[in-house]
């Protein structure tokens, strides 16, 4: 294992993580809800009374983040490094959509909120998606 010092951003990543934790804290303490993105979006697929507006408000906030960040920085956000081709993006999106619905959560719901709650389900889910992600990247980058 070699550390990629050129891309490692401990300070910014920890600070960003603290903000994500604060956002999850706000949502659970003020709204009594879990800040799990796949769960929030998935709940809109089978809409029920009282389950729509807060989800849309949260997503509106999420969508407002990039323009606010650009405003604060005074310059555009750095371009993301995306290697996946069109077909891969489609396959990946389908897997993420079906997998997070089937497994009741993603990196935010299980990885952040669930582990914070010390939920055994979320610890298992997080271990499963981390291992599957590591295995996939290993196959794509070092085998195929």
């Amino acid at each position, binding site marked *: *294992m*070699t550390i*990629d010092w050129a*891309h490692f*951003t*401990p300070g910014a990543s920890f*600070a*960003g*993580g*603290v*903000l*994500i*934790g604060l*956002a*999850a*804290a706000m949502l659970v303490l003020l*709204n*009594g*809800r*879990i800040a799990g*993105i796949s769960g929030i*979006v*998935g709940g809109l*697929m089978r809409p029920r009374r009282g389950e729509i507006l*807060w989800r849309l408000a949260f997503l509106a906030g*999420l*969508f*407002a*983040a*990039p323009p*606010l960040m650009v405003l604060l920085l005074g310059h555009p956000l750095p371009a*993301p*490094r*995306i290697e996946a081709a*069109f077909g891969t*993006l489609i*396959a*990946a999106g*389908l897997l*993420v*959509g079906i*997998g*997070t619905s*089937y*497994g*009741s959560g993603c990196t935010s719901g*299980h*990885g*952040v909120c669930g*582990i*914070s*709650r010390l939920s055994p*389900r979320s610890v298992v*889910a997080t271990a499963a998606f981390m291992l*599957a992600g590591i*295995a*996939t*990247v*290993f196959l*794509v980058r070092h085998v195929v």
Partner: protein
Amino acid sequence: MNLAAAFASGLVFGLGLIISGMTDPGKVIGFLDVAGYWDPSLALVMAGAILIGFFAFQLAAKRERSFLRGAMHLPRRGDIDKRLVLGSLLFGVGWGLAGFCPGPALVSFASGVEAAATFVLAMLGGMVIHAAMERLIHAPRGH
């Protein structure tokens, strides 16, 4: 008030994702690539988020109602079933293929990143497929 709180939470969440670098799939794949040049940043994102989250959820667990006097909707399940593990494994494969998970993909989509739009549409498609399959399996049969 509830909606303003949800909006603010989404906004702070999105800013956190951008500042942490998680909206860059290269950074996510750099974390998952333990056999190559490893970028440990994602571990620090989790550490920062869980550090705050731990205390917030300790407090939340003790409360009957939220600070805005709404009901608490906390998951109560503790069982580990096949769906949880299988679903999470599928999610992990998709995550590793593109370097996108739902939150960062939506934020990148909002920044106008074309690849993120493709991913988000497929992800929503996956969620619709799942919902349709559930309806088919659990559909009430005739009398």
